[in-house]
């Protein structure tokens, strides 16, 4: 059974690190230098190069000082929502940048 929370290792966010990623679909998290998650996103079926492209765009937009981790996942829509709900349950709120999405989201209590 897949763990509810993502357990992949964190890496420094950079163009080099992004270039090493597979061009596959999946979900990813971005954290600041202190390790606080600021966004949970997905690389979906409309991206040209999946996770590689999305993480590259994050590196371009943010500059140095951030971390990321990815999970290759064809079920990226349900996995993305699950990660957001798990974060919400653990922290009583969404990551700062996801709050702006204003998306309808459910409630889980993963224990």
């Amino acid at each position, binding site marked *: 059974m897949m763990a509810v929370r993502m357990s992949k290792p964190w890496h420094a966010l950079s163009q080099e690190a992004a270039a090493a990623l597979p061009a596959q679909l999946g979900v990813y998290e971005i954290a600041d230098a202190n390790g606080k998650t600021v966004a949970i996103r997905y690389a979906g*079926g409309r991206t040209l190069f999946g996770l590689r492209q999305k993480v590259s765009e994050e590196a371009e937009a943010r500059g140095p000082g951030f971390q990321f981790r990815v999970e290759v996942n*064809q079920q*990226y*829509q*349900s996995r993305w929502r699950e990660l957001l709900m798990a974060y919400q349950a653990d922290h009583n709120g969404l990551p700062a940048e996801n709050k702006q999405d204003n998306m*309808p989201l*459910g*409630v*889980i209590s993963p*224990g």
Partner: protein
Amino acid sequence: MDLQLTEEQKLLVEQVRRFVAEEIVPLEAHLDPDASELEPADRERLVEKVRGMGLFGLDIPEEYGGPGVDLVTRTLLAIEMGQHRAGLYAPCYGVFGQMGLAQLYEADEEQKERYLFPVLRGEKRGCFALSEPSGGSDPARAIQTRAIQDGNHWVINGAKMWISGADRADFALVFARTDPNKGRNGVTCFLVDTDTPGFHVRRVVHTLRSTHYATELQFEDMRVPATAILGTVNGGFAIANVRLTEQRVPYAAGCLSVAVKAQAMAVDYVQIRETFGDKLATRQTIQNMIVDNEIDLRTARWITLEAAAKADRNESFRTEAAMAKLLASEAAGRVVDRVMQIHGGYGVTKDLPLERWYRELRIRRIGEGPSEVQRLIMARDLIGGSFH
């Protein structure tokens, strides 16, 4: 049965067909290929448009404010509504109104005020918590969730699996065993608010269907009042069964909807695509696929409409509903599979909706009672006897 559509049915079908083509398909060009929700502003705009068409809440009985459309017509419209990428599990993204929980019409007046009417107004959502990790095909025997009476309350412990929409539901219809010695006559249905202490949505269950996902629930010493019982103590299986039979007709129609669209795509494509100097349409192997698709579609369509017609006449339609569910889910899978083959490499990409339909249709042979259970139901009706 008169196979001719009435003038009103023709107009409604044309109206919904145009709505899908003009309002839904263009929006999908900008959505994620696996999306099942519209942007809130788009949704609001289209709901208002549907209300203006007088077609919102098609499944709501007339006495509760629905438009009073018979099941044959609703089946015809369901076949139209699903003819887009997200159409199998999110026909028109729900702007015609969500499928209601039919069991709520059996509720008492207080329960209707608390649950049914808010659902009909779009203010509350419910989920249907029947299947368990121990099995979903034979729920009456598989249910291990226990409810034990404690004065004027019941204390519920157990787990549920494959429950759609529980994470966003305001309440759940929870089926629990109240008499361990009575088999299907020992199950009771409870209406439980999802913020009740002890109600937990533990995880999303990831499947071939990435949106409209299922969840796993756990109940830990969940205490509910006796007034939460829907119907009678130990009468829950009959309540569950209402849904399991009636749901099969629209379920079959949904399968047909995407298969009809896939067949249309194939008919167009074979007249454009050339191989070895000629159109695919001239190849006999391709022609056979198109013809086999049409046979599958028409067979399943007529059985589905026959089930709906018998329901409209208040005749027993259990055999026909089971046959429709089995035929439509299996036929649609074959049709989409052939259409993918015709489209070659493009067929398996996310550029086209076929790969999503292919994945999601596989679930339809299992959901709402797998093909094997539908055969059991038909065998029981044809031969007699009960399950052993």
